[in-house]
């Protein structure tokens, strides 16, 4: 196909407009407050004191650690569960497989909002309110990850494990030595998706974390910004940037996996 310069330029212009708010957030985070109040787009000076200010305010360091702990452990847990479950659903024949497939799909369909009240009560019975357990264990995105991975496993030709089984390999060996290594891009994409979703998750942490020491970044930042402690916009935008850095870095490295995962999870391949 012939490349059209005009359309490429059009796409550039649209993208520039589209990302302008993002750019503004970056600028605001290194601007003195007087520039923000004057709604200046080009900063009169660039300074990083906003970052220092927000680190002094509140417990952003603690929230950052909480977010890391929660997102990393939830993601590790979900990957292990998903590989096993996806292998059984995608590569083994057994009675009830269809039913379990439907169960997984139903799990994706039931929205957390419809069950958050009983889930909270249950966590209260377990004594998990305001704990890492309460933040990590519900793993709300696990069904989606199983779904994506099982679909991927299913498409690997049978010849691979048949040959291995001839040589006497067990299912466990086939799973870890053949199927999973072959599916690394898919495993990576569910890992990234689950991490990003957990990192950004707002509703459940808002419910289950009841004191500010257990907040994750999204909950903490929202509370901080909404509080009456007279925090300026500059430091808030600096906090926004800090909270976004991990997902942006992951996105830059793994964007291909992430987008494949998104399309696969929605049923468009």
């Amino acid at each position, binding site marked *: 196909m012939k490349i059209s310069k005009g359309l490429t330029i059009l796409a550039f212009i649209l993208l520039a407009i*589209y*990302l302008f708010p993002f750019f503004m957030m970056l600028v605001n985070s290194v601007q003195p407050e007087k520039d923000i109040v004057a709604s200046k787009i080009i900063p009169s000076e660039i300074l990083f004191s906003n970052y220092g200010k927000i680190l002094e305010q509140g417990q952003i360091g603690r929230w950052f650690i909480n977010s890391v702990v929660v997102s990393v452990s939830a993601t590790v847990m979900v990957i292990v569960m998903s590989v096993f479950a996806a292998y059984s659903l995608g590569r083994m024949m057994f009675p009830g497989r269809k039913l379990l497939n439907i169960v997984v799909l139903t*799990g994706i369909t039931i929205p957390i909002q419809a069950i958050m009240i009983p889930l909270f009560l249950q966590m209260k019975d377990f004594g998990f309110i305001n704990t890492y357990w309460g933040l990590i264990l519900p793993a709300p995105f696990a069904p989606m990850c199983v779904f994506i991975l099982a679909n991927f496993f299913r498409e690997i030709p049978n010849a691979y494990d048949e040959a291995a089984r001839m040589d006497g390999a067990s299912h466990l060996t086939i799973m870890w030595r053949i199927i999973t290594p072959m599916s690394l891009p898919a495993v990576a994409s569910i890992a990234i998706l689950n991490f990003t979703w957990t990192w950004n998750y707002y509703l459940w942490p808002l419910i289950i974390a009841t004191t500010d020491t257990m907040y994750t970044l999204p909950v903490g930042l929202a509370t901080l910004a909404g509080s009456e402690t007279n925090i300026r916009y500059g430091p808030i935008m600096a906090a926004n940037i800090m909270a976004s850095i991990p997902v942006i870095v992951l996105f830059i490295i793994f964007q291909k996996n992430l987008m494949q995962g998104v399309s696969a999870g929605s049923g468009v391949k």
Partner: protein
Amino acid sequence: MIVTNKKRNNTLAYLFFLPFGLFFAIFKIFPFIRSLYLGFFKWDIFGSPEFIGLENFYTLFGTDKFWEALWHTFYFTILTVPPLVIIGFLIAILLNSKIKFVGFFRAGFYIPYILSITVISLMWKLMFNETFGIVNKITSIFGIESINWLNDPTFAMPAVAFATIWWTLGFNIILYLSAIQQIPDSYYEAATLDGANSWQRLIHITVPLIKSTHILVIILQIIYSLQIFGQVYIMTGGGPGGTTRTLVQYIYENGFKYFKMGYAQANAAIFFLIMLGVAIAQVRLMSKRGEGY
């Protein structure tokens, strides 16, 4: 020998499924079962539950706040779904046309979507600020008077909707783009030979061939929009005067601010029925049509 092998195989399959299955049962199925009857109880979290039949539902249907929250939720959905679907489709078409750096553009348009709901809400809260927000600065170029976007009953919800469209557009672009890229080039080549121009190719090939993607995107978008909570809660707190309070926020407030668990669950049941309706529509629409190539 074969039988035992098979049996062992089955056991192994169940064992593999077990870790996930256990989590799933505890944190999804049990709460779900409990959600089915909790709405018939009066239960502030500290006392013991008391069965009151349909009373929660009577109260709910007699409460203006509930109907308002329901309407705000639908209003938000109406404001967001059409632009998200149409603009998402158009940008996907643009990215699929004869342009350079497709990967770069695809990633660029996706960036806002990886930000958290808190981050985008706080950044748009600043942009919509009446006195020094950038939005009023831009509209003032066109001679429009300053608007207090998030504190004006007329503009608050559209402003939240606008921020949301900006936030999630990239998701739809990706879905459309990957569907469009699957259409074989030969279709377009054949049409071009027959003298079809690019507009005709778009209308007669691209649009109909990805019909199931249209349905998927629209339904997913409706599902996501109906779940609206965080943006509103952070940007307006449901205000001004409750004019942006949505269904999920109403559930949240009754459950976790006023601890009326039964009442909140009755509300959540209504929410679930709406979502179920959408899901059923999805299954019926999607099963009717396959991708036609």
